[in-house]
């Protein structure tokens, strides 16, 4: 009944003991996976030069030309005077954003995001001529789909995706045990979705004659990544179209951006 130093992973789950008992959340799923931490990757260290190289290569392909303005749920921080300046600067310099194409805009600051109102240039017949787009306070980084060839340059990314599969299968195994012993299952929905991704990667693995490169690339192709280079504000995770997924996160220290204190900051989430 104590933490063993030789444990492979540490798992923290949250039990919903204060929620009303509703039919939507039966007793056997009343736990949330707060954190499952694998203490080490297969390669436990990475050079600062490699981290610098990854950051400089991934930043340009992330978000909208290196800027994340789409996460409006609060993770980019609250709207304030500094975010006003940042937004105007980004609007001025980034031609991937609406004002560059729309011309004059009305920008309304809200608590966690901005509402940009503009006139459509080519409205369809019967359609309204006014459009509204929410923008979050701009932050460096953003979502991107990583090309599989990136693993040739940065093997750590292949390990990152491999460990996600390991975690999925571990959680699946733990849920089977919990089900037999009448204990709550954890992250049931995300695990089921991730199992489909693993099955796809396994088929590719067989077809490619046991190539780990093809295996990891296949799994990467059904996942998207997000580069996060700022402390995220309070928010709820959201997946489009009711999808569910395990979020895996590895932290790197980019020495050129911040003094390497060994703590804090996040890079890829």
């Amino acid at each position: 009944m104590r933490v063993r130093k030789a444990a492979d992973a540490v798992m923290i789950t949250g039990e919903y003991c204060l929620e009303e008992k509703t039919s939507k959340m039966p007793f056997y799923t009343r736990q949330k996976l707060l954190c499952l931490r694998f203490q080490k990757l297969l390669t436990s260290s990475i050079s600062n030069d490699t981290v610098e190289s990854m950051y400089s290569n991934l930043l340009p392909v992330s978000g909208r030309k290196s800027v994340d303005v789409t996460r409006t749920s609060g993770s980019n921080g609250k709207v304030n005077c500094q975010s006003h300046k940042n937004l105007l600067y980004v609007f001025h310099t980034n031609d991937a954003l609406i004002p560059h194409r729309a011309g004059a805009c009305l920008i309304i600051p809200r608590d966690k995001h901005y509402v940009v109102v503009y006139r459509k240039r080519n409205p369809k017949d019967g359609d309204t001529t006014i459009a509204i787009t929410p923008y979050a306070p701009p932050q460096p980084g953003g979502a991107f789909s990583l090309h599989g060839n990136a693993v040739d340059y940065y093997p750590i990314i292949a390990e990152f995706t491999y460990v996600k599969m390991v975690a999925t299968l571990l959680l699946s195994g733990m849920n089977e045990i919990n089900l037999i012993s009448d204990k709550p299952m954890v992250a049931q929905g995300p695990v089921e979705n991730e199992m489909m991704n693993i099955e796809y990667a396994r088929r590719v693995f067989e077809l490619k004659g046991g190539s780990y490169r093809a295996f990891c690339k296949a799994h990467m192709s059904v996942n998207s990544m997000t580069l996060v280079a700022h402390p995220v504000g309070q928010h709820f995770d959201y997946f489009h179209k009711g999808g569910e997924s395990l979020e895996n996160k590895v932290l790197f220290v980019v020495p050129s951006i911040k003094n390497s204190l060994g703590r804090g900051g996040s890079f890829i989430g």
Partner: protein
Amino acid sequence: MGDPLVGAIVMPEFGVIIPALAMNDNLYVDFHAMAQSPRDGTPPTAHMVLTEENVNDLQDYLSVGNMHLEWFQPNDFVTTEVDNVEMPETPTLKRSWVVDCLVVKQIADSKSERRICQQWACLYTPPRTCQIQVHVTNESPQGC
């Protein structure tokens, strides 16, 4: 070393703060599943990362109220051995895992206002010596 709370992830609903130990010579991977789940009906869980300013505010708040954060102790965790877990590449290859599990109780329901500065907030510090030992009989992923 800076303050261990800077960069930590906070789950106010459960009163848990998990420090981040970002070091390029000691990499690890965290997994979270905190979105709303249509499959199992669980609501989303709010979370955030503490900035240096947040940590200063938190320390001030705690000192004014003569409060302190508590660290989870080793005996709060239950060690579970999970046998015969499939390896990703093929279901025929299996191995066992040892997982230290901790269940924390909800301290505010999902409809309540969430605050991070509470006297019940607990800290989790991961053991630094844990290792993953992956045994595969084929080419290892490091050969990618």
